[in-house]
């Protein structure tokens, strides 16, 4: 039995905001199936009562004083933008036409 179906792969692509063609989905379905089956080995480890580690080192939150500091000028922040209008990022429509 495969670890992941073609329909699940198509769903993951939508969640990941990747507009993939049929060929690419077919290829990925086979590869992800192989990789997921391999990494599922972690389930063999007896890990009852073992706490999870999210980070290499124990961390505490770091605060800095809440004070005004130099930051990027608007033209610097916009310098790499695909489209700019009136000193803002110009983006495609966000809502449906009907909305």
């Amino acid at each position, binding site marked *: 039995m495969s670890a*992941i179906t073609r329909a*699940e*792969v198509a769903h*993951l*692509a*939508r*969640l*990941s*905001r*990747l*507009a*993939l063609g049929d060929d*690419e989905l077919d290829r*990925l379905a086979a*590869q*992800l199936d*192989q*990789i*997921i089956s*391999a*990494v*599922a*080995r*972690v*389930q*063999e*480890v007896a*890990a009852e009562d*073992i*706490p*999870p*580690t*999210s*980070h*290499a*080192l124990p*961390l505490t*939150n*770091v605060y*800095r004083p809440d004070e005004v500091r130099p930051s*990027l000028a608007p033209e*610097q*922040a916009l*310098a*790499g*933008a*695909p*489209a700019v209008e009136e000193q803002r*990022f110009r*983006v*495609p*429509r*966000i809502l*449906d036409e009907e909305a």
Partner: protein
Amino acid sequence: MNELVGRTAAELGALIAAGETSAAEVADAHLDRIAAVDGAVGAFLHVDPDNVRAQARAVDERRAAGEELGPLAGVPIAHKDVFTTTDMPTTAGSKILEGWRPPYDATITERLRAAGLVIIGKTNMDEFAMGSSTENSAYQVTRNPWDLARIPGGSSGGSSAAVAAYEAPLATGTDTGGSIRQPAAVTGIVGMKPTYGGSSRYGVIAFASSLDTPGPFARNVLDAALLHETMSGHDPRDSTSIDRPVPPVVEAARRADVAGLTVGVVKEFAGSGGDDGVTARFTEAVALLESLGAKVVEVSCPHFTYALPAYYIIAPSEVSSNLARFDAMRYGLRVGDDGTRSAEEVMALTRAEGFGAEVKRRIMLGTYALSSGYYDAYYGKAQQVRTLVNRDFDAAFERVDVLVSPTTPSTAFPIGERADDPMAMYLADLWTIPSDLAGNAAISVPCGLADDGLPVGLQIMAPVLGDDRAYRVGAAVERALEDRWGGPLLAKAPDLAEAAR
């Protein structure tokens, strides 16, 4: 090849400081070398000779004005294209960032500049540092100077190739699953993954934030330590940066002895299938350590064999989140914005076109591992494995001062051999991943040539913030082997044909 190009970074720094040469002269010698060999090697994505000469002149002027400069002032460095640089494009090897000029310098870029290092160019890499061969770059193939038909390792393969090809004496890299140590091993140079948090991630384009660790490449251990010291240290702009002094790595590299140290050989690695040539050189290196006065013991780290599968859940999960920032709105590529499509459609089209196959695979894998219904079985379980790997290290370091293993299971493989087989590619990181999961320091130093005539690396793993210990043992091995070989391993590499100018 100009004589200056064969010098170590420490020597170049001293020659420049003594006024026997200048930063400008050293920069020109390396630019000439790049012009002569990089057509064949393909280490660099971006070299701007005018900018390099201007940087070098500025260092010479700072010195002439009486400024006290560090030991590497005027020395050229190849900078991995994952670090932001305001005066050079930064692409992370991806089409989605083609031509991007970041509005700020990474902390490490700033520190290199402050120390007077001359950034000679940006080096090729696997896209967003995902890969072990640099074949996942969207731009070009980089070739191993030992054999141009083979991979230079990855993801920092442009950096390893540049140093091994004498295009720069130093380079930066980042190590998330082995991306400094593995390329160093397969090109016969030194590569160090510092303790996680010991070097700043500010301005390093994120791959897996809980693992990404910048570090140095060099042709010898002392040079690596000098660069380590220059680039490391607390950075208030990185919330995971350690607020502690940098371990005394330069002193340790100069000390170069193993007297009184206990060295552990990881039992589980011995049985997990390295090539014969790799195993033979590793066995000799262990015997050498013993002959130098170290006590060698076998250590069991039973969960290390689960580190690879845990890593290929944890890293992709962080990728799926980190790479969400490439949304075609604020910077980088935008595709399909025809006035009718929605932002979401443009985003999906852009990401499909701008990301390469491996990046897409990892985003999808991470999205899967984090989705409800699978989270506990994959991500949750992998995080528990991470705890168990940490505990194995803790238990081992109660008994031994350092752990050793071969850096990689095989020598450099042919370009194309694993390109269509993701799982085979992932195995290159089998022995480097545990130290990424646990965040401890680990170095790779050359330990000889396998039967195929290609370099083998010895990995020395030290505890968290025990970076100096890795350098001390690495330098001892290097000194003993160079005495035996009559010079560095890299001297055995074939000469690269220099193209006519």
